[in-house]
């Protein structure tokens, strides 16, 4: 049995079967949780290339799977991504409320995850563009819930992500020793331009970011946070592999400054936009953009420390975005408008959901005692060794985000009525409570995050 069969083909086949049982959402949820739990555990425990023993059954897990003359390859260096993505899926399936989230979320989220993993595994890499496009199309089927839901945000998402596909395919062709008669230098520069354009769209990098806040306004916050917990992680890993495979690009002088500049622009503009933002769903999109900005800055360091930090940052990123999306969906399902006006005084009516929103925002901004703080601090420490002005730009962006958070806090804490109520369900209180405690523990004891990724570090370091 091969690793791609375990983490791609079987989940895809199972999700197709699940589509026949959409009228049984609880059953689907249970099956989805079981499936993602098993896949996460295998990814954590089982090294690829070794035999898997389950009782008397012995299964040899090989890294390769050949399909139509092409290869899907999952190696030990991919085990971190596999564990992370399937653990993320598991978390979302556990907290999913079958009454407010459509049953199709289960099979489609599993198939989206498998397709994204296949994009990471496919060789040559240029096929990843087509597979990510397929995942995008599945996402649209997943996020469309009601007939009166505005589609403009969803359509923008489709347009932008579809534009990325031809761009990356074309760059792949230019780099693949084509028969074009143009000079090598012209070809390379064109390829870089197309690649850059495609990657910028995938990551919603400034100035191609406008679709992200529109998309976040149009869809369920829980689904949005799931999608943008998984997609940027996979695309960042694909980008790293892509660049690592092109030695001339990896060793070029402009790569590091370009990544740094783009990352800083993202952090600063996101801070600026969020400081004046009143819509909390758009705030969620800005949180994604801020995380991407930091991810690019970590990549720009072009060192094993930078890559380790990037991998460490994925854990708090997924947890913070998950908590943000979950808390917003709790409020949304209770009929609250997710804007400053709609949220006025909500701390007294929905204390746990409101605290969930504020905690996740503070964590994403890297405020002390929250999960992202040690990572933000380490990034700034590493950056300060080369340029202190870059650190100042990051601080400026974070201050912008903090202003937006304080404005949100002022609105939710506004005293409307004297009485304090708890309108969340007990299950919601437990989920939010656990997530807040974990985010604080990870901030107070950074070794927890390091410990989570340490088994994979040896394989990760060779990637960049």
């Amino acid at each position, binding site marked *: 049995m091969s690793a791609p069969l375990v983490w791609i083909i079987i989940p895809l086949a199972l999700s197709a079967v699940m589509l026949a049982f959409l009228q049984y959402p609880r059953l689907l949820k249970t099956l989805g949780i079981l499936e993602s739990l098993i896949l996460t555990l295998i990814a954590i425990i089982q090294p690829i290339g070794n035999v898997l023993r389950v009782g008397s059954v012995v299964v040899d897990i090989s890294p390769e799977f050949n399909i139509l003359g092409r290869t899907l390859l999952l190696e030990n260096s991919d085990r971190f991504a596999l564990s992370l993505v399937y653990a993320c899926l598991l978390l979302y399936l556990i907290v999913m409320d079958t009454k407010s989230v459509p049953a199709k979320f289960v099979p489609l989220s599993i198939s989206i995850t498998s397709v994204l993993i296949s994009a990471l595994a496919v060789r040559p890499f240029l096929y990843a563009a087509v597979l990510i496009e397929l995942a995008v*199309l599945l996402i649209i089927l997943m996020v469309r819930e009601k007939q009166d839901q505005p589609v403009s945000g969803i359509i923008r998402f489709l347009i932008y992500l579809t534009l990325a596909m031809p761009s990356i395919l074309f760059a792949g062709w230019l780099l693949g020793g084509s028969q074009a008669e143009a000079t090598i230098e012209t070809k390379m520069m064109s390829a870089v331009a197309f690649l850059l354009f495609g990657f910028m769209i995938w990551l919603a990098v400034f100035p191609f970011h406008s679709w992200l806040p529109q998309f976040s306004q149009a869809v369920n916050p829980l689904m949005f946070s799931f999608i943008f917990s998984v997609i940027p992680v996979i695309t960042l890993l694909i980008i790293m592999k892509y660049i690592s495979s092109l030695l001339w690009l990896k060793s070029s002088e402009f790569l590091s400054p370009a990544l740094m500049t783009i990352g800083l622009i993202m952090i600063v503009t996101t801070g600026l936009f969020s400081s004046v933002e009143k819509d909390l769903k758009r705030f969620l999109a800005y949180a994604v953009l801020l995380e991407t900005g930091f991810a690019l800055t970590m990549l720009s360091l072009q060192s094993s420390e930078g890559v380790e930090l990037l991998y460490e940052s994925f854990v708090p990123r997924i947890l913070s975005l998950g908590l943000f999306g979950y808390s917003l969906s709790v409020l949304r399902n209770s009929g609250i408008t997710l804007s400053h006006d709609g949220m006025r005084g909500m701390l007294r009516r929905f204390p746990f959901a409101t605290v969930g929103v504020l905690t996740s925002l503070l964590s994403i901004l890297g405020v002390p005692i929250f999960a992202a703080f040690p990572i933000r601090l380490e990034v700034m420490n590493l950056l300060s060794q080369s340029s202190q002005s870059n650190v100042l730009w990051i601080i400026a962006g974070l201050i912008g985000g903090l202003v937006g958070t304080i404005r949100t806090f002022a609105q939710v804490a506004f005293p409307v009525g004297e009485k304090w109520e708890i309108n969340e369900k007990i299950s919601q209180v437990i989920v939010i409570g656990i997530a807040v405690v974990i985010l604080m523990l990870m901030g107070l004891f950074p070794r927890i995050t390091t410990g989570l990724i340490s088994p994979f570090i040896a394989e990760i370091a060779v990637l960049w």
Partner: protein
Amino acid sequence: MENWINYPSVVLLVISLFWLLLLDSHRSMVIAFSILVVLVFTINIQFWTFGFALSKLLTSMMALLIMILTPLSGVTTEGESTRTGRIFRATALGFFLLLVILTINETSAFLNLEIDQTFPALSILVCGFLLFATSQEPFRVILGLLTMLVGFEIVYSSVEQSLLVNGLLAAVFLFIAIVGSYLIASNEKGNDQ
């Protein structure tokens, strides 16, 4: 151009592009798109194998069929475009076509393709861009994306003959039509409510 027969094809193609871009009725747009893919087929067949060109034609036609069969999508229109809007779109397409013509030799040399393929591909690409860039209506946007991909495929399938890539591209093409029809159907039902 390589073959004289392509001159009338290209003229017809440009007319169908203007038709696709300027008319509001879904029915007219569907007809224009059908003409477009048939003309692309007549051009592709000169450079590709018959089976390959036919598979592209069939994929486009199937995608179009999926769009046509969407409930409520056959007769509705986005609403009358203003005259200024039409003039803008026509002028934009005119300028882009001019740009394509002025750079056609360099582009063809860069891609190592004949002008017979490069000109239709780039013209269709820019028309697709204009279609989805100037509208918010799902039908026009999806048709714009499909148009853009038709243009892209002329170039890309000429340079990359891999069966798997082309198969996946065909799957994406059809899937976009399915997703589009899903969005159109639910959007129009939502509007009715």
